[in-house]
């Protein structure tokens, strides 16, 4: 393949990573959602690029799906669910780590995922070489967001980021496995989001807050 493609891949990967960082850095829920939407769009583009590079047509479908579901449907659902809530409960005022600290940790995680990818010997497949670490990084950053954030909403978003990472990861390594599985995964995620939004709804009813600190009745100490 040509130099250009490679550059395109690298650049898009970089953009994706930055978008992910954007998601990590934001506080207010709406900013989150926008960041996530942005990231999803980038993801869709990346998917398309991969499709172009590898020349497997299913991947275009996947890209389309991604664009539709992730950057349109899910944000819509979430905004709908949280319409009734007032702004405070949607904003994550005090995560466990300060912004600066969390950036450092994320940086560490990114390096770790690159390191991890080094462990895995690959045939010289540029797509994999570029995007495997990116997807891993996305994954771990999402996980970190889950660990770090205190409101249920932001945890949902963290889940979504993880899921994006997964999607990219699967895509990169499998070049679109048998489409059934892709769809299955998609469906699972979608249902998961729906259920969690139901839960969010209920939570806001019962606890009139989405603060996960409220969810500490079940414990042993």
């Amino acid at each position, binding site marked *: 393949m040509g130099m250009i493609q490679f550059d395109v891949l690298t650049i898009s990967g970089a953009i994706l990573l930055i978008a992910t960082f954007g998601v990590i850095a934001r506080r207010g829920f709406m900013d989150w959602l926008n960041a996530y939407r942005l990231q999803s769009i980038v993801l869709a583009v990346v998917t398309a690029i991969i499709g172009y590079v590898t020349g497997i047509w299913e991947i275009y479908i996947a890209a389309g799906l991604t664009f539709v579901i992730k950057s349109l449907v899910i944000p819509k659902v979430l905004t709908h669910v949280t319409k009734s809530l007032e702004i405070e409960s949607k904003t994550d005022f005090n995560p466990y780590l300060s912004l600066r600290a969390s950036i450092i940790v994320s940086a560490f995680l990114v390096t770790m995922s690159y390191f*991890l990818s080094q462990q*895995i010997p690959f045939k010289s497949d540029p797509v994999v070489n570029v995007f495997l670490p990116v997807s891993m990084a996305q994954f771990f950053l999402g996980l970190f967001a889950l660990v770090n954030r205190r409101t249920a909403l932001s945890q949902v978003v963290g889940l979504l980021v993880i*899921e994006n990472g997964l999607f990219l990861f699967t895509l990169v390594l499998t070049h679109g496995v048998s489409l059934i599985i892709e769809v299955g*995964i998609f469906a*699972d995620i979608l249902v*998961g989001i729906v259920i969690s939004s139901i839960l969010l709804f209920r939570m806001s009813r019962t606890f009139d807050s989405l603060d996960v600190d409220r969810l500490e009745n079940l414990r*042993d100490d």
Partner: protein
Amino acid sequence: MNSISANLTIVFLLLTPLVGGILVTVFRKKRIIEIVTICSASLILIQVFFILYAIINEKTLSAFGNAFYIDSFGAVILLPISIVGFVSVLYSKNYMGRQYDIGLVDDKHIVRYYQGLSIFLLSMLIVPITNNLGVMWVTVEATTLISVLLIMLYFKENAIEAAWKYLIIATVGLSFALIGTVFFYYANISAGSSEDAMNWTGMVHNSKLFDPNLVKIAFVFILVGYGTKAGLAPMHTWLPDAHSEAPTPVSALLSGVLLNCALYGIIRFHIVSSGTLGPAFSNQLLIILAVVSIGIAAASIYFQKDMKRMLAYSSVEHMGIVSLGIGFGGMFGIYGALLQIINHAIAKPLMFFASGTVSQKYETKVMSKIKGIIKVMPITGALFLIGGFALVGMPPFNIFLSEFLVLSSGFQSGQFLVTMIVISFLVITFAVFLRHLIKMTFGNPVLEMKKDDMGNLAIIPMIILATLVIIFGFYIPEQLQTLLHNASSIINGGSIT
């Protein structure tokens, strides 16, 4: 058996719960849907026994090309699913009926409950019979979602909390599992396999050619991922919450069957990675997690106030013992582990049912408030004792044999230190678990209650299980023995024949 009949078998097996669910949605009358579900559950039971018979005779059964593939190991997992599914449905009638009578749930809930139950069964049935590991992952994830729905059936605060934790942690965990799966797939691809690269059969076939480093990392992801779902410490944290808050029949299914499905995933990949690296690698990982789980369970049981939480922790312990057996390896170890899967799946639902009935009678799950069960409800009390003693591995009940085998294999494989540690943990667990059990069963009830056992439909499922518990204590049928032997040879050799 030829491919057609094989296909039919599978189709019927999967259709039964599906149709059951649909019927439930169609007529929304409580009595009817109860009967429908019971029928479908018993149908499943019968079909599973049929399949088992087939497997015992001709080792494997594959349908739709290689999409579905059942070997002895899958059958071993299939058996508890059907049995526990049946008894749970049977028990649900009485249990949910009472909840309904005291107005805790309404018709809408009942319908939703039985729909959920059917789909739950369906998804769990797919896990051990599918050949495609990706599909397996999808179904396991599906079980999570459905069980979350079942847990948050009636929106009590704790139920919501448990559901939330369960959802988040399980999803995160399973995402690890997906990564692992894909890694394995990639390893398979790069090993040069073209089609059915996601199929377990294919993977085991090529496992010799896989890249070791990749497999190592992949297995770690699988272990953490499915381990989260299987409740191996320290990823077990969701388990006590979910099990304690779910409706009792669901808790029985969760701990009796769902955990096994997750372990099934681990063991499948364990076979593959043993094919590549030899068993030593995955064994030590399994042993580490197992010991941690058993220890944490032993520690946590003592301080529990809630009956079902205590049972949940004992599930953690038993999952630990199973993976310990697999980790120790050897004929004894693996056989013991498989036997332990079945035994635990028999004994734990018994305990859950008993505790469910008791907590309905006493209107609390708090153990300190429950006294003198044996006086208030003699039969349930006796069954409660049987289940409890079985769970702590007391002969002449079933779990004794499997634990005996597992521990022996520990010495066989030269893991003296680990075995001694585990034995001491088990002694501690014995003491602390029985302490709660005895305190609840004997003594005098705090307030005067009339003596009854909450109806036959509450008793019968327990009696079925209790009989199995006792019989398996000192007699295991020939067929089951052969089945277990084949299964353990599959795991042991990492060979498919």
